[in-house]
């Protein structure tokens, strides 16, 4: 059975694409046949984060408009033979994304026996975001410890409960997971940042992981490597934990405790 997972947030710049890339890669690393689709028509970026931007010939809209076969648009990952990328169109407008078209692409992927389809949602609550979430079985709601992001996530949670196929048809609700990114435990301890307990209490959604704020995310995107590949970094480990929890393993939360600077740093100042 193919499972469709939407990565969404409402607010932009919180780490949806970073998360989609690392999450899809992590699933494929664990042996699951996975396809990650960029729904940000007009502003595609997943291809850059995945490092396949020079291999994009056809995109999601070409497939929806029946101009080519799905196989021609699927980009096979160079390192993982179970990972495929479907890029968004750069030029066409968002109206090209129709519900019937998206349904057809997803059905075809199901026939190809994908285990997981990861839908990278655009920011906002317009057509693109609605299309990305419409057919979802599960959702990763990406949230930063920051008031506007938490508010937008609440809005998106409301939409998952009312605008998706499952909600409209009255089936089992979309299974929601909260993923907190750009978390800085030192600032939380200093009372300058909402804690994960606070966010969890406000949004009342089960927590699937906490990704610490880290320079390695920028380094990874500079190179076109999903952050989960950054060996030995907290971010990579945190994303691996997210994938394991998603697949049903129990893992304690890591990288959520404040780290005290050592005596030298305290004496001479950090940085």
């Amino acid at each position, binding site marked *: 059975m193919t499972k469709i997972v939407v990565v969404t947030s409402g607010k932009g710049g919180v780490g949806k694409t970073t998360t989609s890339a690392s999450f899809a890669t992590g699933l494929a690393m664990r042996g699951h046949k996975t396809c990650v689709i960029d729904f940000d028509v007009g502003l595609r970026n997943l291809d850059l984060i995945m490092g396949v931007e020079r291999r994009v010939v056809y995109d999601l809209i070409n497939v929806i408009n029946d101009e080519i076969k799905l196989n021609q648009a699927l980009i096979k990952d160079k390192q993982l033979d179970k990972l495929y990328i479907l890029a968004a169109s750069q030029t066409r407008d968002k109206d090209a994304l129709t519900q019937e078209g998206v349904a057809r692409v997803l059905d075809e992927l199901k026939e190809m026996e994908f285990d997981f389809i990861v839908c990278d949602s655009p920011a906002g609550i317009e057509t693109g975001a609605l299309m990305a979430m419409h057919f979802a079985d599960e959702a990763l709601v990406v949230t930063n410890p920051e*008031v506007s992001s*938490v*508010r937008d996530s*609440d*809005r998106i949670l*409301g939409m998952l409960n009312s605008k998706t196929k499952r909600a409209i048809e009255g089936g089992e609700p979309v299974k929601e997971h909260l993923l907190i990114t750009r978390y800085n435990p030192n600032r*939380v301890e*200093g*009372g*300058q*940042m*909402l*804690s994960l307990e*606070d966010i969890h209490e*406000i949004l009342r959604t089960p927590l699937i992981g906490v990704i610490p704020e880290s320079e390695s995310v920028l380094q990874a995107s500079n190179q076109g490597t999903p952050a989960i590949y950054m060996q030995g970094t907290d971010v990579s480990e945190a994303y691996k934990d997210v994938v394991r929890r998603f697949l049903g393993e129990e893992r304690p939360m890591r990288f959520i405790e404040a780290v005290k600077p050592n005596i030298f740093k305290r004496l001479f100042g950090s940085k």
Partner: protein
Amino acid sequence: MGFLSFFLGEKKSSASVAKERLQLILAHERNGRSTSPDYLPQLQRELVAVISKYVSINPDDIKVNMEREGDFEVLEVKIELPETRR
């Protein structure tokens, strides 16, 4: 933090201010989302039509409301019958 707040007089951390503000505004916004589903006006009109078959009433005599109490949604329908009948 403890040290500082001792000298500055108990000042709330900005994180707890953020939490309070969020809880307030979200409670409000969630209410706005759930209290009036868009089918309420239609439901009201149809109820008026049905009841008008048997009793003559004004369209304003039927009030339809959705309220949220904890985890429950309560659909409240208030029908005022005219006094003149008896």
